[in-house]
């Protein structure tokens, strides 16, 4: 039900708090719904996709895009300069190319030829206007930090399709910012989003906050001219409503499905699951700044005491895999060569005793925000009970989970993070003193490795520095990544042109390539 506002770049949380038609028996039902049944050929049809809405906290402003559904609307109407592959590597989009000088501070970006929906060309000035707006704290963009690294006084356009972005500090990883959610290019001077203009594959049709959004195919897109005439994003906060709408042919796409719905759809001929493996990192945040986990022995005991295979099998209902205490398995920059962390109850018990913590009570904050958390909390309590820690789960309300968890300064709490570039995660969540560093991890050595990586031009050398940083974080940060869960969407059997991809990546919910029938 109304998913609460989500963190912009961690959209995977189910929160908030997310094909129809073709379905056999569904055709009759489709006839009853004007939106679906009518239309002859492939290109004439309206594609309908159901998402959990943020209620009315929604706007067409692409720079303020806290929920999955906002991101999907932004994707339809706008373009970014770059985009993310499935492994979060950077790929060009509106930008044809980018390159830095030897200092890593001056970035020259060349744009491809593209037009806005009103026919005006996309220019370097538009990009500068956009990035200034993103960097303005008043805009409230999730990418504000990425763009506040730019010195706009020193940056400028050197032609209609060429610009130089000057950074305040060297950063050879800067192209990540060009692909960030919330950096979609707007025409210079945009202040209102009542009738927004973008350069994406769909034009604006209509939008009611909390209600449906309608987009129309734009024939002038530089990359993909959509194969469907219209795209409609409809809100359906209940998972059951999304699934039923899909199975009865009322929508072609149902986003963000979990456990029971996934199993139900596995047996359906009229629908197909799109499962992106490992899309969500399941974590427990152990507070390094305070007792008892300021004692590294207890962090290690926690890591060795939990049974990750059992957690993946039971709490993730088999739709996921064990984690290795690092974010981003399978992503660009993840150190894949590390051996998996296995349960070692004897060693864990010895560490607990050594730390003088036998029988210690550890409150663990959890919530219904993610379906896996409560079963995981129960399992972890049992597993750690065997090593002498008394874990007591506390369930908090889903919409206010994060603010409560922070206010109560929990010592142990659940968290999830959707697919993000590994470096973004390290910078935002693990650097000492970072705003979203929730474990209080502060390691001079780790921070220094990140700094060196940032100013290292050579890709292989940079990767090596980041691997070293991650090895430190794995043991000391207090961030226990116990598993990775799949992200599931479903489509009706007659939908073509869509494949499974992790949320936040380019190909996820990419409706400009969709065809029906």
């Amino acid at each position, binding site marked *: 039900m109304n998913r609460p506002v989500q963190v912009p770049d961690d959209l995977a949380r189910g929160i908030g708090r997310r094909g129809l038609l073709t379905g056999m*028996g569904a055709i009759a039902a489709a006839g009853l719904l004007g939106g679906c049944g009518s239309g002859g050929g492939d290109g004439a049809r309206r594609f309908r996709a159901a998402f959990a809405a943020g*209620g009315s906290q929604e706007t067409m402003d692409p720079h303020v895009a806290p929920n999955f559904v906002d991101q999907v609307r932004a994707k339809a109407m706008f373009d970014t300069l770059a985009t993310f592959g499935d492994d979060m590597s950077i790929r060009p989009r509106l930008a044809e190319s980018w390159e830095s000088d030897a200092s890593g501070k001056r970035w020259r970006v060349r744009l491809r030829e593209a037009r806005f929906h009103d026919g005006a060309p996309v220019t370097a000035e538009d990009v500068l206007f956009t990035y200034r707006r993103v960097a303005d704290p008043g805009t409230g963009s999730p990418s504000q930090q990425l763009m506040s690294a730019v010195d706009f006084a020193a940056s400028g356009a050197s032609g209609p399709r060429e610009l130089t972005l000057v950074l305040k500090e060297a950063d050879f990883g800067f192209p990540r910012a060009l692909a960030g959610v919330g950096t979609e290019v707007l025409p210079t001077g945009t202040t209102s989003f009542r009738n927004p203009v973008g350069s994406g594959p769909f034009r604006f049709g209509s939008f009611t906050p909390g209600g449906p959004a309608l987009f129309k195919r734009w024939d002038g897109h530089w990359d993909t001219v959509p194969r469907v005439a219209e795209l409609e994003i409809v809100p359906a906060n209940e998972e059951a409503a999304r699934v039923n*709408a899909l199975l*009865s042919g009322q929508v072609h796409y149902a986003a963000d499905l979990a456990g029971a719905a996934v199993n139900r759809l596995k047996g359906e001929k009229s629908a197909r699951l799109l499962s992106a493996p490992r899309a969500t990192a399941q974590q427990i945040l152990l507070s390094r700044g305070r007792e008892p986990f300021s004692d590294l022995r207890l962090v290690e005991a926690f890591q060795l005491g939990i049974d990750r295979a059992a957690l993946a099998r039971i709490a993730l209902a088999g739709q996921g895999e064990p984690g290795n205490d690092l974010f981003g398995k399978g992503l660009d920059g993840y150190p894949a060569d590390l051996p998996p962390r296995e349960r070692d109850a004897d060693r864990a018990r010895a560490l607990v005793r050594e730390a003088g913590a036998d029988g210690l009570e550890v409150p663990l904050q959890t919530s219904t925000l993610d379906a896996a958390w409560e079963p995981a909390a129960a399992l972890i309590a049992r597993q750690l009970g065997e090593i002498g820690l008394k874990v007591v789960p506390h369930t908090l309300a889903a919409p206010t989970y994060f603010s409560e968890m922070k206010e109560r300064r929990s010592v142990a709490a659940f968290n999830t993070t959707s697919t993000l570039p590994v470096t973004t995660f390290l910078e935002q969540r693990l650097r000492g003193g970072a705003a979203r560093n929730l474990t209080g991890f502060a390691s001079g050595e780790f921070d220094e490795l990140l700094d060196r990586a940032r100013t290292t031009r050579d890709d292989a050398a940079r990767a090596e520095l980041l691997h070293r940083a991650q090895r430190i974080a794995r043991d000391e940060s207090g961030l226990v990544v116990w598993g990775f869960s799949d992200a599931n969407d479903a489509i009706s059997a007659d939908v073509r042109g869509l494949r499974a991809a992790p949320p936040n990546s380019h190909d996820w919910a990419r409706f400009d390539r969709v065809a029906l029938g």
Partner: protein
Amino acid sequence: MGRYTARRCLLAVVQCLVVLVAVFALGTLLPGDTAGVLLAEQGTPEQVAALRERLGLDRPAPDRFGDWLGGLLTGDLGRSLLTNVPVAAELGRRLTDTLVLAAPAFVLVVTLAPLLGVVTGLREGTRLDRLLNAAAVLLHAVPEFVLGLLMIASLSLATGLLPATAVGLNGTALLAQPAVLVMPVAVLAARQLCDLARQIRAGVAAQRDAPLAEHLRLLGMRERTVVLRHVVPNALGPAAQQFARCVEGLLGGAVLVEALFGVQGLGTGFVEAVQNRDVPLVQAYALLFAGTAVAVHLAGDLVSHRLAPRREVTA
């Protein structure tokens, strides 16, 4: 009658006020606020504090309540903390969807319930009565959620007779495709219908055999007149209050039905407002629900007072 009405009206206003104060107090006591919901994981303490100040959440609760009440007296319900959309607009949009569901359900209930109640009440103990009564008990025993799921599975997914949900439709678009309303209206009406029909049945049955009716029959009054002039009015009097509860039930019971069928009505809107700690919106919903409940109960009392004036003693 006039004094009775005035006293009941005054009481109604006081009741509304008590509800508003209680809702505001409870909302203030709930952990978290809109600033925390909006910023979720990414807010730093400074950002949260700044947002709180901008939303006026840093001010003392009595001040905020006073302001809201002052606005209310001038007809201004304020704006949603979350979206800055006027509360009245949000409420209006959701009220439309709920009315589209609740109005047909209400019509269904108030026409069918007396019919079934009177028919079965006059034939108490016959096969027809037992059959209908068993059906009513059964229907009442099935939770609305389950009933909805069963209907979707059988009438939509298995047979394709009806659309499974109203996903993507709002307000008049719902009316334009009445097929989507069939199941939600049926589920919404089912429980109220059972409740009301059974109550009327019991009243009719009791009145049919009451000393008054027997007396009138002994006096030679025709059975038809006894039933229409005495049995039915005396049975409907107490049921008037059940009618009132039925309106309340239709509004309140809509939460499940709306969620299941993807309708964006008052029920789901209220739940979302509470979850988002959107106080002005929560207050407006509370006012609307409390006002409706108090008004229909008032109407119910006045009607039953009229149908059976001696009840004033206990009112």
